[in-house]
């Protein structure tokens, strides 16, 4: 009789379906399958996908590699804490260190060139959020996450932390420069 009483028909599973339900189920199922296949499709034909490349490593090992890159390609320092700015050659491996509550180094990249950016945290979880592009990636301690990034247009961008990481979470921000 109603949804709060036992079904009136004892053999309810043999009752025929109304056309409206059947039609809707078919339409919804087709749409669900389209949505499902969009994801593999984008891996083949789309430009924006996360790599499946990640390595387990220690904060010390990661920091060491980051320091080597900084020593090699440092062009200047910025801000009151004198954070190094590095300008690595196209195609090279770049290490971006996230820690409470800063990003290091500041990157200066060339538009149209690709870079292998390694993301890792030294302590807690952080969130890599590139603005105003709005690319957002989780940054874990102990997992070196490799992304091949190709900046499209020159300009000043910002990396803000968007995974809550304690009391000064909102101060964790760094510029990222893209030059011609």
């Amino acid at each position, binding site marked *: *009789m*109603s*949804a709060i*009483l*036992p*079904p009136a*028909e*004892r053999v309810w*599973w043999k*009752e025929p379906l*109304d056309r*409206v*339900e059947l039609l809707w*189920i078919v*339409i*919804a*199922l087709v*749409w*669900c399958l389209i*949505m*499902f296949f*969009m994801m593999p499709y*984008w891996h083949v034909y*789309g*430009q*924006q*996908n*996360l790599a499946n490349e990640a390595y*387990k490593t220690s904060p010390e090992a990661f920091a060491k590699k980051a320091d080597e890159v900084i020593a090699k390609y440092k062009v200047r320092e910025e*801000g009151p804490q004198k954070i190094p700015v590095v300008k690595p050659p196209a195609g090279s491996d770049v290490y971006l260190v996230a820690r409470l509550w800063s990003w290091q180094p500041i990157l200066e990249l060339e538009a149209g060139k690709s870079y292998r950016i390694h*993301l890792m945290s030294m302590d*807690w*979880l952080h*969130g890599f*959020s590139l*603005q105003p592009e*709005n*690319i*957002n*990636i*989780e940054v*874990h*301690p*102990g*997992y*070196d996450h490799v*992304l091949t*990034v*190709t900046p*499209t247009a020159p300009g000043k961008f910002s990396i*803000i*932390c*968007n*995974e809550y990481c*304690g*009391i*000064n979470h909102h*101060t964790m*921000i760094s*510029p990222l420069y893209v030059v011609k």
Partner: protein
Amino acid sequence: MAVNRNFRTCPTTGLVFHEPAEKLMRWNAVVAVVALLVGGVLAIGVLLTRWQAVHLLQADLFYQFLTAHGLNMLVFWIIFFEMAILYFASSTLLRCRLATPALAWAGFWLMVVGALLNNYAVLRGDSSVMFTSYAPMGAHPTFYAGLILFAVGALIACFVFFGTLVVAKAERTYHGSVPLVTFGAITAAIIAVFTIATGAIILIPTLLWSLGLIEHIDSLMYRTIWWGFGHSSQQINVAAHVSVWYAGAAVVFGAKPMSEKVSRTAFLLYIFFLQLASAHHLLADPGLTSNWKIFNTSYAMYLAVLASMVHGLTVPGSIEVAQRLKGYNNGLFEWLRRAPWGNAPFVAVFISIVGFGFLGGISGVMMGTEQLNLIIHNTLYVPGHFHATVVIGTTLAFMGLTYFLIPVLFRRKVAFGNMATWQAYIFGISMSGFSVFMMGAGTLGAPRRHWDISFAGNPFGYEFPATAWLMIALMGIFGVGALVGGAMYLAITVYSVFLGEKIQTPDFATVSAKRGMAPAPQPVAVGATGHGAGVGAWGMVAPGTFVLALVFLTSFVLYYFVNWKYLSTVWPLK
């Protein structure tokens, strides 16, 4: 020990209440509302801080408020209320005695102690770790201990629910299959068992870690398992509030499910596939393959989304059929125009269905798409989405159910006349605006859980687009509306329950357990009813609902591809 078999029949609805079950329902509902009150007060601080024009609280207090707001709303308010629903859907709907009331009380008090302990941990100030408490960010041990106690209590309640089903079957208090609403509640309880087990798997080691007994908790392991608890608990809500939708349609319209087969299969799909969805929180994480992400985030090809789309059609569809059978059979939408727009439970359930589908459902699929997640992850879009699902979907449905339960369960009239109806409109519409503008700000990159997006005083500041600021301001305004709606609910509920006009039930007398065992109530006679034959148009019994469903689908498809278009403009990444 004699089994208490005292029952009371509600004179207006004919529902049968078992005395111990009724008391448990009342207490669970009352504690739930207390948690809602606490969460609501905290919401004021959270909202007025994120609304940058006001920026009320200091950073430490803000993060503390946000942590407690999340826990009291998402966990304590909703789960206490769900326990009341489980007892209602088993003991009351099956007209049977509650199994082991003493154990149920033990579960209840464990939940109360757990909730208090967890709130104490956050109140201390050293556990502002958010609802998610991602290790290696650590909280005070009482934070995890509170959650574990709460979860054990909830698990006990689930088993009391299952036990009650067994009692009903054994004592033959119903014929045939359980009602659809009970079936939905079983779905919720099965998902709850899985959820709580997952919670134990991650929270127990984390508790030991916080006590220094375990050295290391891997952040990726924590997130992977924790979301099996954190997301799955929201799936309990979905199963529960969809049941409440069906119950609402049944109570207000006497609506019969369009097809038991379809609705029950859709619930079954929830059990099979909803759990996988916890993977969609990990789409932007390293160390998991795309194959794993795609299979899981799509709930194995969106089979649980399919289930929600089915419920989204069958609930309004059953209302349409019921209305058409009553004679509102003209055109496509007479049934909707002539719906009881002044009836608070109906309005709440209606806005809940529409808001959950259009705002919560569609946005949820966006976030859960592997690549689209890149432009959404951890932005304000995320809380925008879940305020649409959990607040408009679940909380508003529960509010509607409250207005039905106050007279039935508490035997008091709903106070303040039409205010309950106004409450449903104000809360539903404000919360919809709030969610939409929050998602808008998120689309423009504004982060969630962030004290100050103006980055005042920071040498490396970033200025969000003016539109984002406008969205935040609109979010603030609609948020205040939602707070007003929430306060109205609390005022109506608390006043009605404690001071409301009593409904006299002439035949009612409490029979003490000592005076012997009354016979179990007689099963309901099985009456034959026809399907909605002879109504509708185009060979469909619910053509109006079908048109609305197509409107929904069109918005879904358009918005889905708009997001792909937007994604295609950001930096290439691989």
